Structures are given as C-alpha cells and as structure tokens.
C-alpha cells in the first residue's frame, strides 16, 4: 500500500447545531488525485478549508506525514491552494503573483526568477508575465493561479472548484491540462467539485460526501458501477431504482421477479428468499427491443434526443417509468412516443444497494 501523506481522523466541524463535518476519516495517498465530490452543503468545501487551515476543526485531527498539523496556521502547512474566483493579487503583475510564495519564503532572487519562468512554462503563459490579472480572461487567470500555487513546490495542492466559473468548452480543456500537470509533477492534488463529470474524468480516487459524511470512496469506475447506496447511484450519473422481490437464491445468484417475469440478479452477501431488494439500474444498461423480443413489455412515453445518444422514458405497469439511454448511431429500434417496446438487461446490470440508503 502506498504511503499516506495526509491522515484525517474523526474530523468534525460544528456550526451551531449543524454538523458541517461529521466524524470524517480519510487517508490521502502520496501523489494521488483525490476528488471530494458532493452537492452544496455536503461539507466538501469545509473539509478542504479544514485541511488548508482556514476552518479549525471542532474535533478530530489532521496529520501530515505523521506530524499533527491540526492547530497549525495555514501559512505553516505548505499547501498550495487554487480558488474558484482565482484570487490573484490585483495590484501585482502575473510575475509578482507567481513569485509571491517564493518571496515570503525568502528564496534567492536568481532562484525565484528561474522558478517563475518554469511555472509560467508549465501553464503555457510565458508571454503574459508582465500583465495585470485584470487584463486576462478567466481561464488565463486560473492558469496563473495554478502556477502561483505550484511555484513553491507545495506538499499538497488544494483546488476549490477551480473550473466552475469557466464556460463548458474551456472547462473541458483545463481538465485535460490539470490531469497532465498532475501526472507530470506527481504532486498530491485534493480537488473539490460538485461536478460529477469533472470528478470522474480526472480523479484517481473520488470521495462522495453528503451532510458532512463520507458516503463512499473509491476509484471512479467502482463508484459508478458499484454504488453503495441510492444517493451515490443517483448523484454519479443517472439511475433507475427498482424494488425487486427475491423469489429464489442459489449462492450469489438470485432470481427476482417483476409481474410474473423472472430474471437473475447477481448479489453477493446474505439475502433471504422473500426479501425485497433495492437495486439501481443504469439507463445505458437497459436494452430496448421489438415487442416480445426482450424480458418485459412496455410503452414509450417520451424520447429526448441528445446528439450522440437519446434518452427514452419507458412505462411499465409494474415497475413504473424507467429511463433508458441508447446510442443514436445504433441500428435497430427507433423508439417513438406511444409505441410498444420491450426491454431487458443482463444479470450483472442490477446493483443491489444498502437498505435505507
């Protein structure tokens, strides 16, 4: 197992009666790209502020490579930080902004000059060195903020929704850049976002938070395909939720039924016959077919065309309305509102969720 750079133990932050963080435990590994993902009010920004040293914890501790830093002021933690609003110093040029962390560390002038040039190069902003921050676009300012936060070779780089103020196209470009910068420098990144696409596309590991608690953590692939509870299943991508009664079991293979139709569900762990399983079913895992071709028959309620794929709402008398996502390039059924259709899925498409989630 790789070494942890940061260990967060039982971190709790109370604002009056509200727990913004509720006994959060987290290990951050050296060099990883870790994303804290959650809706607003989930505690992700509070957790980042606590790591940065701006929000003292009510309880718990934070260790940096085994050294307790819970009570240390932000300037002693040696973490770079990138903010949503860029937070460049408006009275300083780009060069002075990037040199700032080096100057407060009293590095030699020659070294500062070299380091600033190198960092400008990292973010491909060499020709902007003598501009003022107000003379640049949002994307350019964020690149400078990134260069500034990396200039002193921080132990960890903290990023607080750095891309959310930018337009969609630019955001996608910067995601690639951030990822390649991370791979190139090997610095540990802790990234806060509410945008699941950002989280899935860049991260080595994602931590999903809700109401100040960690819901699930893992690599993007695991989180997407094996969500633990309905919150995770719903927050990361779209999911259909079904309540399936179990009619038979044989080791991990269960047989469930919907309106008399039986089909297999893979569910490790103990589940008794007669129980009702709560499962999540991804829209893209449902197949559509001609009436009678697949397991269940339903009616198309509505079709929404999204370019590369289309979303189809299918009504079924027992399961209600399901959302199906189908590639538009795929030959076969062309669903139309009001037409009968059949649908089905593979045995491993249903993900059994924790009860109560």
């Amino acid at each position, binding site marked *: 197992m790789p070494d942890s750079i940061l260990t967060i133990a039982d971190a709790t932050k109370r604002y009056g009666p509200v727990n913004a963080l509720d006994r959060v435990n987290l290990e951050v590994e050296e060099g990883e790209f870790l994303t804290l993902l959650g809706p607003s009010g989930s505690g992700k920004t509070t957790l980042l502020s606590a790591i*940065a*040293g701006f929000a003292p914890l009510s309880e718990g501790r934070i260790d940096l490579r085994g050294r307790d830093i819970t009570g240390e*002021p*932000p300037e002693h933690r*040696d973490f770079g930080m990138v903010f949503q609003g860029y937070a460049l110093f408006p009275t300083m040029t780009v060069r002075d902004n990037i040199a*700032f962390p080096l100057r*407060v560390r009293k590095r030699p002038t020659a070294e500062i000059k070299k380091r600033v040039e190198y960092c400008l190069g990292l973010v491909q902003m060499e020709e902007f060195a003598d501009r003022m921050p107000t003379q640049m676009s949002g994307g350019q300012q964020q690149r400078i903020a990134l260069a500034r936060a990396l200039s002193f070779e921080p132990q960890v780089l903290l990023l607080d929704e750095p891309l959310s103020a930018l337009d969609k196209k630019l955001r996608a470009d910067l995601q690639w850049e951030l990822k390649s910068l991370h791979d190139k420098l090997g610095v540990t990144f802790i990234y806060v976002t509410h945008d699941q696409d950002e989280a899935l596309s860049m991260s080595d590991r994602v931590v999903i938070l809700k109401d100040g608690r960690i819901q699930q953590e893992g690599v993007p692939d695991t989180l997407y395909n094996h969500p633990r509870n309905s919150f995770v299943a719903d927050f990361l991508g779209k999911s259909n939720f079904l309540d399936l009664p179990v009619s038979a079991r044989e080791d991990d293979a269960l047989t469930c039924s919907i309106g008399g139709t039986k089909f297999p569900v893979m569910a490790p762990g103990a589940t008794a016959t007669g129980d009702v399983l709560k499962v999540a079913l991804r829209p893209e895992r449902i197949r559509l077919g001609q009436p009678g071709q697949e397991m269940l028959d339903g009616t198309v309620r509505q079709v929404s065309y999204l370019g590369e794929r289309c979303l189809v709402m299918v009504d079924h008398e027992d399961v209600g309305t399901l959302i199906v996502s189908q590639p538009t390039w795929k030959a076969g059924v062309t669903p139309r509102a009001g037409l009968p259709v059949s649908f089905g899925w593979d045995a491993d498409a249903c993900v059994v969720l924790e009860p109560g989630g």
Partner: protein
Amino acid sequence: MKTSGFRIFFMTGAWMVLAFLLLPILVVIPVSLTDTSYIGLPKEGLSLQHYAAYFQDPRWMAATWTSIWIGVVVAVCATALGTAFAIGCWFLSDRASTVARWILITPILVPPVVQSLGFYRFWVTLGLIDTNTGVILAHTLLALPYVSISVFAALANLDRRIPQAARSLGASVWQTVRAVVLPAAMPGMVTGGIFAFIVSFDEIVGVLFITVRNVSTLPKKIWEGIQEDIDPTIASVATMLVMLTLVVTAITIWRGRANA
C-alpha cells in the same frame, strides 16, 4: 423644442436654490476686494490691501500654519488608527466588530457642542487644555469615523479569498496585510486622510472649548476677527479658502476623468 410653463417653473426654482446656496459664499469675493477699512462692498475702487494685510500679519500666518500642521498630523494619526481599526473589523467580521463599527461612528452622530463639552471636562483632568496635543487628540477622535468608513468601503470590494490565498501561499497575517489588504485599502486611506485633514482644518467648536491663548487655528482666528473688529481681512482669507477648494475640486474631477 417647446418650453412648457411647467419646465420654466422648475428651471427657475432650481436656479434660485443654486443661487441661494452659492451667493453667501461668493459675496465674500467683492467684500475682500473692498477699499474700505470695514466689512462692506467696494466704494471707490478695488483694492488688494486686505490680502496684503493677511500675509503681513504674523498672527494670521501663525494661525494658518497651526491649522495646516495640526491638520496634517491629525490626517496621519486618524488614517493610521482608522485603517488599523477597519482592517481588524474586516478580518473578524463578526457581531462584535459590527458593534465596534457603530460605536466608532458615534462622533458623527453626537452634536459637536456636547462632544466639545466632553473634551473640555476630560482635557482639564488630563492637563491638555490649550495645548497642541489636546487639539490633535480631539481632532483625531473626530476624524476617525471618516477614515474608517472610507476604508470599510474600499475593503468591501476585497474578495475574502485573496487574503486566504496569501496565507495558503505561506504569508503570515502581517505579511498578508502588507501585501494584499493595505493595497486594497489604499484608495480609502487616501480619501479618509483628506477628509481627516478637512475635518481638523475646519473644526471650531472643539477648539473654542479646549484652547485659550496658546493655540490659535485659522477658524478660531476668523471667529475672533469677527468678534473683536470687523476686519475685511477675514473676507480675503475666506476668498482664498473658497478658491483653494475650487482648485482642489477641479483637480480631483480632472484626475478622475483622466483615470476613467
């Protein structure tokens, strides 16, 4: 364009209000040029004798210099204290700091006479009556709210994440204040400093209460001039102050245009 009676009525009203505001100020100009030895309009011709009298009278000169240097010291002290206060409140930004802000601006709300009476009582106890220090202290207290209000206004535009960024990049609180908070507060400090100077330069009620013979400021000298002899020198001083104000205002507007 057809001019309606309505429009004429309001235009006339507006010009009359303007005249009412300006004429009492402007009337000092002909009076200052009078050839008589009392306050009145010129009789036989214009004369600059009262301007000459102002520059030749050591008492007028002394009063002017006193007002100027006290004003400068007050501006410096009030700017330093008011800025420190405003920055402190900005960092705390909690209930206590809101209360503190309200308390600090009370000198603006309290009637000058009441305040001056307070100064008088205290300054007697402290032995500051009729001293420059006493006047500077009183004027600094009176000017503080103007400085802190204008610094508060300047800091309202400062993104809270900017000082946070500085801290996370390794700057201590003090380095953060110097590198990013003070530059943001600077426009407010300049405005506040100018205000503080004007407050001190202009102040008379307090000065009348806490000075006797030792300290004489320009407003006090003007006041005494009116009381003791109706000397037209007062009008020439007043005219010069009006001109100075006009020039300074014009420069401010011109510079504002150039920057915009």
